[in-house]
């Protein structure tokens, strides 16, 4: 297991997990979110190949109402 910061909270995940795997684990719709690792945006088609490391800061962002 490795430890990442997910949306500013600690989270333990399996080693060698990709971003896509994380999204699946969280049961999120992959089309309506943006993913960022250590402040770098990871494009949709790169999520499969992007393997998370211990200590990575992951942000998952979506749209909501606002003026």
């Amino acid at each position, binding site marked *: 297991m490795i430890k990442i910061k*997910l*949306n*500013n*909270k600690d989270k333990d995940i399996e080693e060698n997990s990709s971003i896509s795997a994380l999204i699946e684990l*969280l*049961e*999120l*719709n992959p089309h*309506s*979110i*943006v993913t*960022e690792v250590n*402040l770098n*945006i990871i*494009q949709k088609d790169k999520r499969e190949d992007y393997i998370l490391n211990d200590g990575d800061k992951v*942000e*998952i*962002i*979506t*749209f*909501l*109402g*606002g*003026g």
Partner: protein
Amino acid sequence: MLKIGDKEFSSRLLSGTGKFRDKNDIKKMLEKSGSQIITIALRRVNLENPQDNVLNYIPKHITLLPNTSGARNADEAVRIANIAREAGCGDFIKIEVIHDAKYLMPDNEETIKATKILAKDGFTVLPYIMPDIVTCKKLEDAGASVVMPLGSPIGSNAGLQTKSILEMIIENSNIPVIVDAGIGLPSQAANAMEIGADAVLINTAIATSSNPALAGEAFSLAVRAGRIAYLSKLQKQSQYANASSPLTGFLNL
């Protein structure tokens, strides 16, 4: 037509997606009001309780205007803008930099900084600002596509408290002026258009009414009426007709 960046819009009413009780009302509101641009915000997904994505309630032909709410400085605004672009929202971005949590006043200085960076990066930048002439000039130079001065404090529904400054901004601006924030009534929206604003952005007043679709329609009509009034150059009552002591008597007319 309202021209922003390289797009043209027939509606001069911009709307927002915040504060709706039922997101299904967003679509109805858009239909009734004819608004063609709507603001959206970006946030971290709430992992315990993922909410619906607001995009699911916005028809495809509507232009999305993601805002940078939550940003407290220029760097954060730039980061949010890039995320929005990555998410496929297009190049429009409303810059909103607020670090005053008490009154929610925009930080003009950081907004100018962010505008410079994002305009250079190909964004169509719509900065939300405290009405200030010098800031507007700097934003123009920085490449902003419009300026969005506030009418009164955000969510206050107080109308055009900044009217005399807005008039100066409208007089001086070479880019469209969109009055954002504080407009609570259609009559206030009409007034903003009468004094020559190019558009208004209304969110709270529509979203919190008991019938957002009807409220949207009312604002839409008011914006049109105000615009037509402005174009028709309505005349004010004459104020200088009676001279008690003539100033030009010496000319022996």
